[in-house]
């Protein structure tokens, strides 16, 4: 690692996470003083972006090679008051909360108090959104049945495809002009609307060029003042690059990285899309700029190092309330994809793949996240190189099944080429890169729904009838009747959630279009329609199921004890749950230790996982959304299994009230007592191809990687799971003893990164309950 990189990396690691008012102030000034009220909303939004990019501070760090910060300096994180407004209390909480905190300066607080809050109070998108939701939606939301992603963050969740590595903003403006010329004389009632959309896109494209030129100007000034000859030349070259890209397509390696970085900043400045943005198949995109000796390998490595640091400088925007709980992390989920297959279906692993894997290992940073796409066509060496990094125990890269992803996307109706150009983003979400708007709408608490079902639609925590009356649990004469009632509850809540989401999609389409993001994703330009309004080629809305292990074990326990063995009546079981097992300690031991559990390749237990999955799938899949696409499901939790556990009472699997639920499709923590292969067999019983992603966590202690044969064993474990159509698997490699020490002496373990669920995080930044859960997981692996 070059000294320059060491210095920049250290700076990035040590930079304080701050909430900064710069963007909020600029956007407030724009709407207060500069808003052309005669312009349509898309143009207003484009002008707002232009205003920010023309007026924000330009930061160029000492010895940087890739330039551009979303805030005035690294980790100075903006807010988006047009989406949701932080109150002064929120700022105090953010400033003082022990985990994932953001320092708020006196200056920022004053800006909020005097300017930002007075202007936006009652006028944010969040205010409008909440006022549109039905009483049924609100009751279920408050009961903890589901969350809503778009409450504090904009839809986004998309990935750059090939196009933008071959085109510049000027090319996109020309494309817009072509479409304008084509539709100008159309008689369609939508023609004016379309013209406005394209005008807005052109303004946004020009705004990014201006932003890059402002960097060039500053670089030129720095160059003329620079004494050191080498740095002077560097600064001049960087200025030249900023005058070339993103206006034009990049031609060199350095240009390509800077080009992407400006585009990335454009997306995350325009709004705060959930899952920032993502260069996607980076090894494929960069290879043309690297192959046949276009750049020296070490120079390329240094530039990649600098590129990595840029991601790490950009924490996820400060989240509050339920949103903070469901995704409690600084990570903003830019997931770098490597490997997989090319558009023609052939093995895509190349020299750049291996260089990127080395960079991941060398940088050892929280951001960006990284993954390997493993197809049956990829060589084992590729997996071995990934294991080389995984064994170092910072949770990256995660491992994905390309062949499953392609099948998933094909099932949803994508073309084979678009499917092969796709991959996974965020935690584990499958998508067609560059052509799809796939918006995650919120987590769905399957375990809570079972609890509500057992109480005939009533939620004991919020004391409301939140679901339909599907019968007193004691009245069910068979397990099948119970499953039938549970299915009705799932369907009801899925419908309520989807009705809400259709309104939310409409709200974003009309009030908060994203002309800049629309430039990037096909076919928004040729459709002359916004990304948020269904302009993309594919438009998918996902609901993420949470707690599959917990709900499965709860159902299995009811089937086993109440209906099959008849060792306790339903009333008796409900009584034990009501009392949170107080006075039922022995019974609880039986539930935990003497009851069949998901994760052991036991069909008796796994059948309930398949049933639940199929009911959830049936309730959601293929229902039309508001953008001309459909709703789909995936199975991932981020950190929401903690929040969902907190709002769910005691469950029939012996879990006490408030304890976290199982994560992803992993078994309940500690319930898999058989073997890693049994976990994979159980997890593969649900049909992954019908999802847009599932998340499976396997924990291994470092000792699993000591032995020479371990790589080939783990490789065959991965290949076996993928042969069963498993979508994703991730490994956590850390000893429990280390974690305990880190909990006691956080100061000594500042760089300790662990895999949480679909992403990695600093152990120190996790809440104590989540820390404990990870310790429990790890110990389990050591037994």
């Amino acid at each position, binding site marked *: 690692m070059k000294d320059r990189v060491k210095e920049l990396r250290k700076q990035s690691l040590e930079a304080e996470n701050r909430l900064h008012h710069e963007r909020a102030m600029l956007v407030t000034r724009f709407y207060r003083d500069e808003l052309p009220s005669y312009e349509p909303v898309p143009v207003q939004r484009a002008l707002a972006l232009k205003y920010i990019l023309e007026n924000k501070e330009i930061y160029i760090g000492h010895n940087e090679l890739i330039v551009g910060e979303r805030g005035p300096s690294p980790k100075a994180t903006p807010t988006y008051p047009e989406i949701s407004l932080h109150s002064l209390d929120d700022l105090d909480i953010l400033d003082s909360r022990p985990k994932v905190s953001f320092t708020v300066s006196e200056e920022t607080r004053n800006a909020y108090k005097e300017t930002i809050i007075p202007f936006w109070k009652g006028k944010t998108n969040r205010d409008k959104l909440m006022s549109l939701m039905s009483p049924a939606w609100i009751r279920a939301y408050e009961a903890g049945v589901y969350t809503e992603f778009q409450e504090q963050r904009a839809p986004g969740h998309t990935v750059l495809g090939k196009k933008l590595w071959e085109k510049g903003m000027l090319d996109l403006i020309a494309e817009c002009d072509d479409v304008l010329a084509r539709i100008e004389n159309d008689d369609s009632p939508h023609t004016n609307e379309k013209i406005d959309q394209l005008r807005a896109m052109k303004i946004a494209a020009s705004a990014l060029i201006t932003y890059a030129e402002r960097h060039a100007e500053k670089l030129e000034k720095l160059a003329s003042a620079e004494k050191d000859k080498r740095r002077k030349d560097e600064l001049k070259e960087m200025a030249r690059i900023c005058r070339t890209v993103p206006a034009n397509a990049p031609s060199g390696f350095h240009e390509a990285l800077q080009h992407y970085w400006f585009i990335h900043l454009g997306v995350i400045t325009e709004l705060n899309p959930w899952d920032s943005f993502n260069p996607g198949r980076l090894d494929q995109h960069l290879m043309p700029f690297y192959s046949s000796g276009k750049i020296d390998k070490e120079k390329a490595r240094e530039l990649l190092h600098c590129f990595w640091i840029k991601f790490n400088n950009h924490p996820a925007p400060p989240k509050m309330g339920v949103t903070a709980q469901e995704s409690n992390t600084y990570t903003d989920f830019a997931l770098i994809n490597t490997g997989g297959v090319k558009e023609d279906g052939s093995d895509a692993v190349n020299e750049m793949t291996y260089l990127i894997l080395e960079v991941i290992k060398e940088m050892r940073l929280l951001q960006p996240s990284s993954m390997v796409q493993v197809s049956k066509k990829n060589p084992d060496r590729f997996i071995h190189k990934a294991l080389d990094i995984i064994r170092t125990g910072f949770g990256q890269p995660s491992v994905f099944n390309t062949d499953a992803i392609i099948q998933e996307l094909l099932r949803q109706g994508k073309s084979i080429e678009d499917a092969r150009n796709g991959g996974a983003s965020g935690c584990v979400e499958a998508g067609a890169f560059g052509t799809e708007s796939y918006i995650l709408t919120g987590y769905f608490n399957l375990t809570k729904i079972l609890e509500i079902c057992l109480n005939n639609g009533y939620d004991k925590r919020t004391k409301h009838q939140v679901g339909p009356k599907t019968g007193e649990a004691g009245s069910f004469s068979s397990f099948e009747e119970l499953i039938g009632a549970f299915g009705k509850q799932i369907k009801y809540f899925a419908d309520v959630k989807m009705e809400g989401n259709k309104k939310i999609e409409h709200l974003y389409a009309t009030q908060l279009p994203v002309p800049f993001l629309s430039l990037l994703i096909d076919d928004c330009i040729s459709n002359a329609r916004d990304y948020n309004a269904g302009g993309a080629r594919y438009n998918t809305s996902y609901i993420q199921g949470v707690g599959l292990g917990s709900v499965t074990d709860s159902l299995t326990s009811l089937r086993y004890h109440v209906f099959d063995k008849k060792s306790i009546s339903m009333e008796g079981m409900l009584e034990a749950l009501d009392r949170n097992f107080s006075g039922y300690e022995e019974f609880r*031991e039986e539930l*935990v230790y003497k009851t069949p559990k998901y994760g052991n390749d036991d069909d008796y237990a796994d059948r309930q996982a398949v049933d639940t999955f199929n009911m959830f799938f049936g309730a959601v899949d293929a229902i039309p959304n508001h953008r001309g696409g459909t709703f789909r499901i995936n199975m991932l939790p981020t950190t929401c299994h903690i929040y969902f556990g907190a709002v769910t009472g005691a469950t029939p699997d012996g879990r006490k009230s408030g304890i976290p639920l199982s994560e992803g499709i992993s078994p309940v923590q500690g319930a898999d007592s058989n073997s890693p292969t049994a976990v994979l067999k159980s997890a593969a019983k649900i049909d992954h191809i019908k999802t847009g992603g599932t998340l499976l966590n396997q924990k291994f202690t470092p000792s699993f990687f000591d032995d020479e044969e371990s790589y080939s064993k783990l490789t*065959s474990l991965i290949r*076996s799971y993928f*042969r069963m159509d498993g979508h994703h698997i991730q490994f956590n490699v850390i000893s429990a003893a280390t974690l305990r020490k880190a909990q006691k002496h956080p100061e000594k373990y500042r760089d300790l990164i662990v895999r949480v669920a679909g992403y990695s995080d600093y152990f120190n930044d996790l809440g104590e309950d989540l820390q404990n859960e990870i310790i429990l997981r790890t110990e389990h692996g050591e037994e």
Partner: protein
Amino acid sequence: MRSLNGHRHEITETVGKWYSADEVMEVILKDRLFYEESGGGVTFSGGEPMLQEEFLKEMLQLCKHNEIQTAVDTSGSVETEVFKAVSGKADLLLYDIKTSDEAVHIENTGSDNKLILKNLEWVKENGPDVIIRIPVIPGVNNNNEEMQRIRDILVTLRKRVKRVDLLPYHRLGRQKFENLGMTRRAGIKGEITSVEIKGFMEVFSQGGFPVKKGG
């Protein structure tokens, strides 16, 4: 049994369960895909699995029928007729050799090593392939001379020996002894260092055998 709060309970735990050959086969077949991907199979171990001759033969037969590779982990200290009957049906033997020295063998295991060496002789002529496993025990066989003598035996059946595994003595069985209410047998003191193991590995690799620590 460990309870929820980590305290031990004063109850007896039944370990083990009766299985028929077909039932065992059902469990084995569940993981077929993993054997195929890894090139692995099933290992029958014990105790001494050859003491359950009929059951073991039936299992080996069933595995062969289902195209699943088999290995038998044996001490070799089994009547030769039984040994032949079982070994003839297995794809691989994991064969323990503790020492070449009869007296040392008697002193530490209570029986001589005549059968072990005789059965190995049979393997030389008839197969199957073997992986030789040598537990390296402080004060018993942890010296170069002993390792060289074992190597000299192996040289006589070179083409059958696929690998030599050196298993350093460890104390992980402590908990089991306690659970069974037994105090640990005295006599073995000290540890095997990794430097020591490296030296012994050298003995076998110089003899042209692939060798591995652990296994």
